[in-house]
C-alpha cells in the first residue's frame, strides 16, 4: 500500500469505551488494518450491524460508516433485511459470544443455512462482560463466574465447528494474541462470497480474568497463546486432550449460491409465471 495505515481515518472522534486491557481494541484494529490492506480508504459501501455487548460498540458509533446497533442478539436478522434490500452493500456483523451464540444462536445457524452474503465477526471473551461477568455458552468448564461461583458445569460451544457443519463458506478462529493472523482471516472473510465467520477469542481482564485468577491482561494474552493449537495439530490429538485448548486456523468449504443469488432467481421465476 502506498499510503500508511491510520485507524483514525476510519473512526469518529469518540473514544472507545473499553476497559484497560480489553481485547476489543485489538479486534477493531485488526479489522481496520484488514480494510486498509484490501484497499478501502474509507468505509463507504459497508453497513455494520451489531447487537448488545461490549464488542457491539466496536462499529457503533465509532466507525465512520452506516451502522445499526440492534437489540440483543438480533444483529444477524437485521443484517439479513439490509442485505436483501441492498445487495450492493457489504454487510458486516460485529458481536460478542453472548449476542451471537447465546441469545442469538438460532439466527447465526439460519444465516449460515441461507448463505447470507455477510461477514460475522464474533469477539469471544468467554463471558458476559458488560453485565459484570456471568457464565456464557463459551465459558470453559470449571471457570468461576458470578453465576457459577463453584465453577462452570456446562461444556462450552465450539462455534467454528458449528458454522462449518451448518455449511459456512469460510470460518476461522484466532485470538487477540494473534492479531496478524486475525487480520488475514478478516481479509479472507471479507472477500469470500457468501457467509463468512471469524471468531476472535479475546481477553476480558475485568469480568473474566479477575475471577479466573489472572493478574492482568498480559497474562491472559500469554495464556490465550499457550492454549492455542493449530487445526492440523489438533486433528492428530484425541478429543480429551483438546478440552482446554483453543483450536485456531481456518476452515474453507466450497462455494455455493448465495442468498442474494437464490432470491434473484426466485424473482426471475415469479416474473415468468406471474
Amino acid at each position, binding site marked *: 500500500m502506498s499510503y500508511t495505515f491510520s485507524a483514525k481515518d476510519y473512526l469518529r472522534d*469518540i473514544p472507545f469505551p473499553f476497559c484497560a486491557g480489553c481485547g476489543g481494541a485489538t479486534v477493531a484494529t485488526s479489522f481496520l488494518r484488514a480494510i486498509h490492506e484490501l484497499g478501502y480508504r474509507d468505509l463507504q459501501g459497508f453497513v455494520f450491524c451489531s447487537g448488545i455487548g461490549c464488542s457491539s460498540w466496536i462499529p457503533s458509533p465509532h466507525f465512520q460508516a452506516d451502522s445499526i446497533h440492534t437489540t440483543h442478539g438480533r444483529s444477524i436478522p437485521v443484517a439479513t433485511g439490509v442485505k436483501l434490500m441492498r445487495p450492493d452493500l457489504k454487510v458486516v456483523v460485529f458481536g460478542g459470544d453472548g449476542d451471537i451464540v447465546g441469545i442469538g444462536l438460532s439466527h447465526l445457524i439460519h444465516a449460515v443455512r441461507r448463505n447470507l452474503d455477510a461477514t460475522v465477526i464474533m469477539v469471544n471473551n468467554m463471558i458476559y462482560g458488560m453485565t459484570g461477568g456471568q457464565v456464557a455458552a463459551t465459558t470453559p468448564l470449571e471457570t468461576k463466574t458470578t453465576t457459577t461461583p463453584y465453577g462452570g458445569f456446562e461444556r462450552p460451544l465450539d462455534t467454528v465447528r458449528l458454522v462449518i457443519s451448518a455449511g459456512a463458506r469460510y470460518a476461522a478462529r484466532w485470538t487477540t494474541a494473534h492479531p496478524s493472523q486475525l487480520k488475514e482471516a478478516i481479509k479472507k472473510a471479507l472477500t469470500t462470497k457468501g457467509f463468512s465467520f471469524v471468531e476472535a477469542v479475546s481477553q476480558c481482564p475485568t469480568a473474566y480474568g479477575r475471577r479466573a485468577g489472572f493478574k492482568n491482561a498480559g497474562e491472559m494474552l500469554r495464556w490465550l497463546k499457550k492454549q492455542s493449537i493449530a487445526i492440523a495439530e489438533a486433528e492428530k490429538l484425541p478429543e480429551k486432550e483438546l478440552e482446554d485448548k483453543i483450536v485456531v486456523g481456518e476452515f474453507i468449504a466450497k462455494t455455493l449460491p448465495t442468498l442474494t443469488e437464490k432470491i434473484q432467481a426466485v424473482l426471475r421465476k415469479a416474473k415468468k409465471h406471474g
Partner: protein
Amino acid sequence: MHKHLSSGIYFMQGSEALAEAAIIAGCRFFAGYPITPASEIAEHLAKRLPQVGRIMIQMEDEIASIASVIGASWAGAKAMTATSGPGFSLMQENIGYAFMTETPCVIVDVQRAGPSTGQATKCGQGDVMQARWGTHGDYAAIVLSPNSVQEMFNLTVRAFNIAEKYRTPVILLADEIVAHMREPIFVPPLEKMEILNRRKPKSGNESFFGSEEVPPMPSLGEGYNVTVTGSTHNMFGIRFTADPEVHRTLVGRLVNKIRNNVELLMDFEAYNVNECEVGFISYGCTSRAVYEVVEIAQNNRLNVGFVRLKTVWPFPDKIVQTMAQRAKTIIVPEMNLQQIFFEVQRAVNGAAEVVPLNKIGGGEMFTPEELYSEIEGSV
C-alpha cells in the same frame, strides 16, 4: 397478473385484501413466520411480491421477522410483517426498538383467542392492550382496527402512510374473523389514492434523530454515515446513556409526535352520537353485530347510537365524551374480558354509565340478540 391490482370490484379474503393493499402502498419487503390465523398474508405475499420484483422471506421466528423488517426499512424499503398474538408477543422488544429508532414499518396482528396457545384457530380481541403497552419503557402506539375486507385494504394503505409520515411502527390490529371472511371490495384507481413516502434528507447536514418533530430519514448506503441505535441518542444518533436531558428530549419528542397529532390520527365511524340514549363503543369484528342491533333498536323506537373505532390507539377521547354528554348508558362489547372498556370508563369519567359486555371462547361473535338484550336492560 398486473403489477398491482387495477381499479375495480373484487371478491376477496381479508388477508388477501391486506396483502394486495400492501403492494399498492409500496411495500417492498415482507418477512414472517407461520402462525394461524395470519399465515394467509405471508402465503399470498410469497406468491405476489416476487411477481412485482419485491422480497418475501420466511424467517426462523417472529423476532427475526421484525428484525429483518427493521433492517429492510433502513435499507430504504417500506416493510411489513404479520403474525398473531404469540408471535406479536415475541416481536414486542423490537417494536420498541423501531419506535426508539424511528423506523417506519407495519406490524399486522391477526388476533386469536389467547392467552398462550389458547384457541389458536378461533377469533379473539385480547391483544388491544398488548398493542398499546406491549413493549417496555415509555412510548406511544398507533393501532388501527379494520372491521371488513374493504377496511383490511383501506387501513393497510393508511398504516403504511402513517408509518412513513411519522417514522414510527404502526400496528394493524385485525382479528381472525376479518382476516378470514370474504367480501366484495372496491379498489380505487391508484391516482385517487394517497400514498405517502418518508421524507428524505436534502443536504445531509440535517439531524436524523431530532430537532424536528419528525426528522428526515436517510437510508443506508447513501453516504450519510447514519448511526442507528436503540440506546438513548442525541439528534445525530450518537449514544448518550447517562445524560438525563438527552433521554428526556428524545423520548419526550417520540411520544409527543404521536400525542400532538391525535386529531390527525383519530379515525372512527359515528352514528347518532349527539342524540342517543344508549351508545355502543366497539371495534373490529364485534362492530359488525352493532350495526345490526342499532337497526333493530331503531325499528323498536329505541334511541341508540354508536362509535366504531378505526384508530384504537391513540384513543379518541373526544368523540366518546361527546356521546357521554347525552347518553345514559355506553355499552362496550369486546371479545375479551374487558380491555377498551377501561379506556372508555376513563374518558367518560362518570358522565354516563359504562357497561362492559364480554364474550370469549370458541371464536363466537356477539349476536345482535345478545347486544339487544343489553339495551333492553339499560332503558
